[in-house]
């Protein structure tokens, strides 16, 4: 067992974890943040994506101990304190980009990172390529792509490419 301290959704937390405990297990089991999901055991579905120090990371691919000192944001930490949705959340709702909702937290976290990393603009083809690491079985991605394109101008205060 190791004791680790980190910041999750702006709050300092610490926990006792086994060496083999994954970050996603820490979030779900120890911190009760069940919005982050587990959809596979081969790091391919993206249901577990969170932000670690501002970058999107598959939290099933990282040991909890590696998150020592890190700043983590999960889906639960996106909306403003008054409940106002992040533009990406709002656009997912607006464009019906979710059905069962299981891939959604990881999809939203990845989508935010994609838009942030491409301030120059994003084509539809680019959005589709960048979503390579996130699987959705419900939507056929059509509306997810639309939602991300619609969130771009809201996040960058300018039009998508």
């Amino acid at each position: 067992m190791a004791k680790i301290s980190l910041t999750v959704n702006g709050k300092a937390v610490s926990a006792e974890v086994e060496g083999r405990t994954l970050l996603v297990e820490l979030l779900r089991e120890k911190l009760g943040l069940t919005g982050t999901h587990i959809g596979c055991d081969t790091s391919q579905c993206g249901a577990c994506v969170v932000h670690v120090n501002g970058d999107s990371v598959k939290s099933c691919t990282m040991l909890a101990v590696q998150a020592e000192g890190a700043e983590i944001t999960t889906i639960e930490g996106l909306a403003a304190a008054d409940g106002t949705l992040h533009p990406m959340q709002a656009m997912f709702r607006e464009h019906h980009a979710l059905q069962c909702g299981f891939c959604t937290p990881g999809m939203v976290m990845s989508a935010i990172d994609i838009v942030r990393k491409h301030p120059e603009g994003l084509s539809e083809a680019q959005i589709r390529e960048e979503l390579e690491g996130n699987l959705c079985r419900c939507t056929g991605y059509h509306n997810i792509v639309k939602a991300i394109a619609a969130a771009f101008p809201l996040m960058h205060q300018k039009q998508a490419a």
Partner: protein
Amino acid sequence: MAFEGIGASVKRREDGRFLAGRGHYVDDMNRPGQLYAVIRRSDRPHARLRGIDTAAAMAAPGVVAVYTGADIAADGLGGIPCGWQIHNKDGSPMAEPMHPVLAIGKVRHVGDPIAVVIAETKAQAKDAAELLAIDFEDLPGVADLRAAAAGGAPLVHDDVAGNVCYDWHIGDKDAVDAAFARAKHVAKLDLVNNRLIPNAMEPRAALGECDVAGNYTLSTTSQNPHVIRLLMGAFVLHIPEHKLRVIAPDVGGGFGSKIYHYAEEAIVTWAAGKLRRPVKWTAERSESFMSDAHGRDHVSHAEMAVDESGRFLALRVSTLANMGAYLSTFAPSVPTYLYATLLAGVYKTPAIYAEVKAIFTNTVPVDAYRGAGRPEAAFLLERLVDAVAHDTGIDRIALRRANFIPADAYPYQTPVALQYDSGNHEVTLAEALKTADYAGFPARRAEAARRGKLRGIGISTYLEACGIAPSQVAGALGARAGLYEVANIRVHPTGSVTVFTGTHSHGQGHETTMAQLVADQLGLPLDQIEIVHGDTGQIPFGMGTYGSRSLAVGGSAMVKAMDKIIAKGKRIAAHLMEAAVEDIEFKDGAFRVAGTDKSKALAEISLAAYIPHNYPIEELEPGLEETAFYDPKNFTYPGGCHVCEVEIDPETGVTKVVNFVAVDDVGRVINPMIVEGQVQGGVAQGIGQALLEGAAYDANGQLLSGSFMDYTMPRADNLPNITVGTEITLCTHNPLGSKGCGEVGAIGSPPAVINAVVDALKEYGVRHLDMPATAEKIWSIIQANRPKMAAE
């Protein structure tokens, strides 16, 4: 108030919690004192179990219990039941071998559960499961359908000769033979409908609990909690309904794979009773691959007899269908009544004969997966029609038009049992061709050719049967359950409404659509309506969600219950306003005395019903709550036309879907946004089947595609934008006129895609191609046919 009723694209009410990370899925639940179950599964396709040594596992840290098939047998648990019985050609019943909860004596497929380890933590249970020493005696296995059906194949069940579960047929063989004898032309085709692994993104999970009074609760990833309560309670665990509550909370996709009663549900419930502590099991994705029921897996031969003008005279089909190692809940119905009865499609083929042999193999059980039987029928038929066009030189669109059941021929009795109530295939075809700019295709093909690309276009004009199902018809065909749906509508004293539905939403957006339906009928704002589903403790009964039935059957039950509410409300209103009941009309949420300005809002009536001081108490019970069971009169028959355009890179064999248009007739639409999403999702799965997905086994039954690394799930960059259109003919036999939209996408699309690929490859002499049309398959065809083309 914005319009929120029938026809409005209301944003989904469930999205708020999902987007905030507050969805409530089974694996999100944890109970005080909870234990964790890990299943040790067979890694062998077929083996005798000579012994299981549990000592080391039992002694491992944190382990509370280890159970095997022997413990299950000692406690007298039943086998996992099958919900549908098919009869053979000779009238005898199908073979129905025992399906034990944990393997007894033998394992029959990779993934077959052998033992369960229950420990304080999941990691401890996992560690201990590896310490189980299992003495296997490997037996030869068989995975391939044709091999398993051939004489001398290893037997999956010693007492099932030839591995034949059933040998069934439908249609008039003599009429078909006679028509073939006078046919001008016969087109023949051999087809494989590839085996698929559903892979809902949420892995299955189950949490069992038992309280001090012996009341059990199972929380499970299910599309139909009441069905699970019935099957597990009555047949496996022998727990009566009133002591067993089954909850299916938020469920992360199903597509059929979460209809069935699975062993793990019984294991955690039974173990929770024995240990008097909650027991949770959650599948890892590798387990999903080897334990969730798979889909499709047919091998067929089809022949169409055609006269000189291209009219279809008769259709003859013989199909082998893979059942896997055991019969899953609805498996026997899929290749029979959900498949062969659909072989008329949209055509007036006068004579049809189909025979289907269902075969056991050493593979995961196969059952309904989105579309279930109907995609297999549509693929066979729409490929065969293109083959007729290819062989006769008749244009494929003209050929279809010439054989369509005309709109004025409805209701139409097919030669394979079903009676279609409504449809208009000409209209959906015309709309789809226009939207896809079919006429402009030759120019696009020429332009692609200049870039060195092969472009093809394909269509499918399909029909399916859903809104499952009229109980007596289904019962006569072998169903062991009723297939009606139930709604309980409770108008509270102050006029808000809770609707309890026996259907279940796992992505379909029922909390929105069904609330819109109720808002429309009762004249209430959406925020006064709550939809409750997924809990046998709250909902009277229900058959759940599959077969695109929730609106057509479940919504109709709501309409029926609302009719009762309104009828009772009228009697109360008549009393309050001192008018005759016949003079009361209900409109826009108020009861009015016709021809006067006297009216009472629904909330005033409900208040009077619960505080019955001024109330016709002699003739009317207080309260305003009604339950309705709705049993459909027929199936519903959505249909439409899908057009797919592909571009193939001859250097790599990679197929890109460049345009996809789906124009579907799903009957009355409540929420167009949600319907469009359902169709897009279904089409994505259909394109996946056509181009990417395929479960692979070696000859013995070792699963080769056991993870997302080996099984190609469609990703965002594999798929195009999907244009959805709707054309509506109303269902004539339910009060909503709705037909269902959940499966049309997955049914209509695979043949459209393959027809397009074949079209793109026609210069290479390709007449047919089996799914998935992978880059490797196409590249090989191109390579093999290149020299021939050069020589010509």
